[in-house]
């Protein structure tokens, strides 16, 4: 068999990976072997964190709603608000509630008052 050198095959593969890691810091965007490793780690992180992102954002919304709701009354809290929402079958999700809480706090107070009064009235008159 004649001798075959591989030529530019490896270099072509590595330039693609180098392009991916072109904005990384220090040796992570300069050294070939490190670049391959860092690309793998970056993709793994992004895969794992795409699922965590959903969890993290929900946590953030819940914390924000909780902060605003607790201002309302002495013993009113996020958990009670959510319970009232479910009782009244109001399908607003936490994302929207959090955005309402930031942009238009009075609106959220109005919603919570409506639900509280409704629930209190129903329990009082014995209607489910």
């Amino acid at each position, binding site marked *: 068999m004649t001798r075959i050198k591989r030529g530019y095959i490896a270099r072509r593969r590595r330039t693609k990976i180098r392009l991916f890691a072109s904005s990384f810091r220090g040796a992570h965007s300069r050294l070939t072997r490190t670049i391959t490793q860092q690309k793998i780690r970056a993709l793994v992180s992004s895969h794992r964190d795409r699922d965590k992102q959903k969890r993290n*954002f929900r946590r*953030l*919304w819940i*914390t*924000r709603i909780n*902060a*605003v709701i*607790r*201002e309302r009354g*002495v013993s009113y809290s996020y958990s009670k608000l959510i319970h009232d929402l479910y009782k009244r079958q109001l399908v607003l999700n936490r*994302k*929207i509630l*959090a*955005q309402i*809480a*930031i*942009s*238009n*706090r009075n609106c959220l107070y109005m919603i919570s008052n409506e639900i509280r009064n409704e629930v209190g009235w129903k329990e009082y008159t014995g209607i489910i």
Partner: protein
Amino acid sequence: MAMAVNCATSSLLLTKPSNKPSSTSLKKTPFLGFSLPAASKPSIQLNRVSKICCQEKTALVPAGQQWMFDDITGPDVWNKTWYPKAADHINTDKPWYIVDATDKILGRLASTIAIHIRGKNLATYTPSVDMGAFVIVVNAEKVAVSGKKRTQKLYRRHSGRPGGMTVETFDQLQKRIPERIIEHAVRGMLPKGRLGRSLFTHLKVYTGPDHPHEAQKPVELPIRDKRIQKQT
């Protein structure tokens, strides 16, 4: 502040229905880039509805809510969670609170302080950004603890070398450096990390009733804990 702009746009959105000229033909929706086909105008003037297409599903939008799909200038409030810009957390605009620590239970006081410093009582809370307020504590040497903690609570520190652990009781530390007690308590309740360390610098503790921050016009810290005052 960007916060004010946000409120302004939303209040603008809220007041829009009153003076909106509705036209249901050739609407550009925020969801699609191209215009919708003109909806057939029903003969009854009252129920003017228009069709909105989103992901191959259509919906009818009554005229009163048409403004929600009209105004597509500005950031998308409903699909992008709010994140503070630099203008939302400039240190000079943050509120300053003042607390008198006389006869307040140490842990409960520290908890309230930590909540305000971290910004967890605000709607704009963000874990990665310092949105909290500044807190001044005066009369730090008069802080109270229940039970026998005054003589039995130990404060330990280690110098790093073998045999370098120093143990002090609450009482001894209060005689030596009274500010450190409240600082130690609050530091334990703030997040540990770069942000936590910079949050800690927003706490100012002083023995005695005066403090050098009159120019910041501190407000009384609103305390919601009923058991924070020591029962005599």
